[in-house]
């Protein structure tokens, strides 16, 4: 899977031309532009022609010109792109963002590990969202070497929003099946023969470049180059200022040399020797600025040369409007690299080392590693990786770690324990905890043998990863233990630079705070996370700061629901400010905002936030955060009276909780609600079993008591239920507010069952009183308290406004009406969701469906959730029924 080999030349075949820039002097090829205008009336246009044919030039000229077609979005596939996720992220960025320049990207900040399917869905929605039609141009598609990405692209094309158009440009016919679209005449093609210059265009090009050539000369040139755009442009460069253009053409026509080979050699030879020197040595890198070019050429003046070459349109193009970064046309770059290797092979290792040093000094460690490897110094490259691993972890740069590891040949890590740290971080990001632990083990054993100067740095990285690993595995006790040890060691190492201690301290505070959050020690969590966030801000670590803040949106004895919600919202805003809002680490903040909205009875708002939470939570989100999301989603369903779906979610929450070694703060609540939901669905035996299974640390006065009451009431024994509830209701200390509200409501319903309307009214009033401070509306919906509230004369309550809101919600927000509304106008299901939908009529369980589709169970859960919500279904059977009604199960698309 490595994209770069040690010998620069070996991967020349992977270099591809994306044609020339549209700098001045290029021809406006009106006929071709019109051809493209006609082509994009169809949904998909495929431009397929060899390098140097003028594909990119045409597309850029067309994109710059066309305004009446709506928005044109331009994406160039990165060289040798093997990563489907990266590819779709680039597409999504382009579709979402304003028209972006093709300039050098800052070392790509890492990316949330959302899977490709989800990204494709997001791209499709983003395309559909635009009011104006969007033309998505994907250039250099031949560089896309991921079978997954191509399959996903095929799916996208098959289900393109009706207003969207896609133009694919490639050196070869892309391996994408388009016959369905062809059958309905929705595919246009532009090929090499269409792109060829005509003789007239050749004459125009010569004239516009100020080359004086006879008609016969122009005809000969056209014939010799066969109208090949790059050939003509190379010829023009050599012809400009040539003392005898006719002779040049005659010589060119007379030789049987290959066109490009001959013209590029000619062009290089005609350059002054210092320009030749610079061109050859700088061809080593894909992109350069004046400084880097100077370092490689070993002489000053490189920037001026690059600017002049660009102005002369000599296959050098600037990548940014300020013209500080440049690259060579791929054809020329390939030629120069061959020539460099052929004539200056001895200098190569030294040139690579110089490039590596420059990139390392300028913070581009990935390029530095690549060039160090190319210089043949694998141990040094591995050391570079090890020394930067901690920073990448600190900044959440999962993508960088992935990239840098890919630069090494496969199997290299065994020989280089220095790579183990990065591997551990990568595995951790992918949720492969055992593999991460094994790599950490390896890294740790290596730390001892490292020279003292590096030992501490490596030890710090190992320690921070150990913490993260323990936290993700839910080993709450272990985290606290580790932090204690670390605390001692950080204090001892007074000689170390403070920055490193601060960073490790930040990581420790974060992990400690997260663990305390999930284990319900919210006051400690609050203190540690605030300190961690403040520290992160001071030392300029936004990812760390956001991660700390994202875990602070939970209510406690000291923090109201409204305050918690506001904090979570601020955490999201902070993440957005830093552009980190799509990282899995922000999941708890989204979940908290959504959850708090649901507590307050704002179900639609809650649903919106939960959707974002599930989008951001990768398939490998921490189980502890998954618990939160499942509980909140279950609440949403329960609040809407969708008991069956609520049950699914509470079960999923219990399942996620079982992955943790420590007990989640939400565990008693999950058990209580799971049992209560089972009881309400007429499964009292299951409900009792659920409560019994939760022996450890059970709280009979809290959630468990309420659940037992629900079971008794379901069995018709309301009197016994009241007995149980009395314990909860009489307790003034240690019972969470929402449990109290719930207990009052259940008691009220029990009284109503027993015909005691005044006791029922009193209980309802008590519930309102307990709910008022935090506006805890959700328990009223979950307890299905509509009848009970009817029993409370509205003039008798001191909480009239709250009561009115709740009654409105129970009446209008009830599930059936929204369900019908949704069914009439169902939101379109994504292809991934459709794939999952096909399995719902079968007997396969969710894990079995996941195996069938080669996706994780979490992905299936997400899709099922979306299917239910889009179809307005409460459970699997109603989803199947609605899908049948909408004929979604009969389309036969794979």
């Amino acid at each position, binding site marked *: 899977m490595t994209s770069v080999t040690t010998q620069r030349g070996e991967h020349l*075949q992977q270099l591809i031309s994306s044609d020339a820039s549209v700098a001045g002097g290029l021809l406006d090829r009106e006929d071709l532009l019109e051809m493209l205008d006609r082509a994009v009336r169809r949904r998909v246009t495929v431009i397929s022609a060899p390098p140097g044919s003028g594909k990119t030039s045409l597309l850029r000229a067309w994109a710059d010109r066309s305004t009446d077609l709506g928005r044109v979005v331009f994406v160039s596939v990165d060289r040798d792109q093997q990563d489907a996720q990266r590819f779709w992220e680039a597409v999504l960025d382009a579709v979402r963002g304003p028209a972006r320049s093709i300039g050098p990207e800052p070392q790509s900040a890492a990316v949330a590990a959302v899977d490709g399917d989800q990204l494709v869905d997001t791209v499709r929605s983003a395309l559909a969202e635009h009011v104006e039609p969007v033309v998505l141009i994907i250039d250099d598609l031949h560089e896309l070497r991921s079978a*997954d990405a191509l399959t996903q692209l095929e799916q996208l094309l098959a289900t393109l929003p009706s207003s969207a158009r896609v133009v694919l440009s490639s050196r070869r016919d892309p391996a994408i099946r388009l016959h369905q679209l062809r059958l309905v005449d929705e595919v246009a093609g532009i090929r090499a023969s269409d792109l060829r210059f005509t003789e007239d265009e050749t004459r125009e090009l010569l004239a516009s470049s100020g080359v004086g050539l006879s008609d016969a000369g122009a005809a000969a040139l056209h014939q010799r180059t066969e109208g090949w755009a790059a050939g003509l442009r190379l010829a023009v460069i050599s012809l400009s200022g040539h003392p005898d253009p006719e002779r040049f053409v005659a010589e060119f026509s007379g030789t049987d040399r290959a066109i490009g080979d001959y013209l590029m050699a000619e062009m290089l030879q005609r350059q002054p020797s210092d320009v030749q020197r610079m061109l050859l040595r700088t061809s080593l890198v894909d992109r350069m600025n004046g400084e880097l070019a100077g370092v490689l050429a070993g002489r000053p003046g490189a920037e001026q040369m690059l600017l002049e070459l660009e102005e002369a349109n000599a296959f050098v193009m600037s990548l940014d409007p300020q013209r500080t970064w440049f690259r060579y046309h791929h054809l020329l770059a390939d030629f120069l690299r061959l020539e460099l290797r052929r004539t200056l092979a001895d200098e190569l290792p030294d040139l690579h080392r110089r490039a590596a040093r420059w990139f390392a000094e300028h913070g581009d460690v990935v390029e530095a590693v690549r060039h160090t490897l190319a210089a043949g110094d694998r141990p040094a490259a591995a050391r570079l990786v090890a020394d930067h691993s901690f920073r990448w972890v600190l900044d959440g740069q999962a993508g960088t770690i992935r990239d840098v590891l890919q630069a090494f040949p496969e199997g290299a890590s065994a020989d280089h324990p220095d790579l183990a740290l990065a591997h551990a971080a990568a595995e951790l990001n992918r949720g492969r905890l055992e593999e991460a632990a094994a790599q950490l083990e390896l890294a740790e054993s290596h730390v001892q043998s490292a020279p003292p100067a590096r030992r501490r740095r490596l030890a710090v990285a190992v320690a921070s990863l150990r913490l993260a690993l323990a936290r993700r595995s839910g080993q709450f006790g272990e985290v606290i233990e580790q932090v204690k040890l670390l605390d001692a060691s950080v204090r001892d190492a007074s000689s170390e630079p403070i920055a490193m201690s601060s960073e490790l301290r930040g990581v420790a505070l974060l992990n400690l705070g997260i663990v305390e959050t999930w284990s319900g020690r919210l006051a400690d969590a609050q203190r540690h996370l605030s300190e961690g966030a403040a520290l992160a801000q001071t030392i300029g670590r936004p990812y760390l700061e956001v991660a700390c803040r994202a875990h602070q949106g939970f209510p406690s004895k000291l923090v109201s629901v409204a305050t918690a919600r506001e904090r979570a919202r601020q955490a999201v805003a902070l993440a957005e400010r830093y552009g980190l809002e799509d990282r899995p680490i922000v999941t708890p903040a989204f979940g908290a905002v959504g959850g708090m909205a649901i507590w307050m009875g704002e179900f639609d708002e809650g649903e919106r936030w939960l959707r974002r939470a599930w989008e951001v939570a990768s398939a490998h989100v921490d189980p502890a955060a998954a618990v939160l999301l499942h509980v909140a989603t279950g609440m949403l369903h329960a609040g809407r009276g969708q008991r069956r779906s609520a049950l699914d979610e509470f079960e999923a929450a219990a399942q996620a909780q079982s992955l943790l070694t420590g007990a989640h703060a939400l565990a008693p609540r999950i058990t209580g609600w799971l049992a209560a939901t089972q009881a309400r669905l007429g499964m009292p035996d299951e409900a009792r079993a659920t409560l019994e299974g939760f022996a450890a640390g059970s709280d009979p006065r809290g959630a468990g008591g309420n659940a037992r009451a629900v079971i008794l009431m379901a069995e018709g024994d309301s009197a016994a239920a009241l007995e149980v509830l009395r314990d909860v209701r009489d307790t003034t200390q240690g019972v969470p507010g929402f449990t109290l509200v719930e207990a009052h409501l259940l008691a009220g319903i029990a009284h109503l069952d027993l015909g005691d309307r005044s006791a029922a009214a009193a209980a309802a009033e008590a519930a309102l009183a307990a709910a008022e401070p935090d506006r805890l509306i959700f328990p009223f919906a979950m307890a299905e308290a509509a009848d009970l509230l009817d029993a409370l004369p509205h003039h008798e309550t001191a909480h009239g406004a709250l009561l009115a809101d709740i009654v409105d919600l129970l009446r209008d927000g009830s599930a059936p009406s929204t369900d019908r509304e949704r069914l009439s106008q169902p939101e379109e299901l994504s292809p991934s969701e459709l794939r999952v939908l096909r399995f719902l009529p079968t007997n396969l369980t969710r894990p079995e469906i996941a195996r069938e589709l080669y996706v994780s169970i979490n992905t299936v859960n997400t899709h099922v959730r979306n299917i239910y919500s889009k179809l307005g279904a409460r459970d699997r059977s109603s989803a199947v029924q609605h899908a049948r009604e909408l004929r979604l199960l009969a389309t036969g698309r794979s």
Partner: protein
Amino acid sequence: MSNDHRIPASPAHQGGRQDDRVSTPPGLYTIRIKGRLGATGLSAFPSMESEVKGSETVLTGLLEDRSALFGVVAQIEALGLELLELRQVRAR
């Protein structure tokens, strides 16, 4: 990159993958390219002998497997050369 999220490849792609597993035996190949190549162009094919025949360059060489073969073809494409013929002379 996430292997655990691989969606099943379409039959067309699976075909390609399976073919890769059936190894092509190493063999002697000749490749005809339009035009004569200069020293720089020829240096792109270090594993092959070159010969000029009329206005064509003929590359001949033992290519170890399919990867080696497609490597040469990709190189021809990248340099903007025109491939006229590709032939296996004999299997080894």
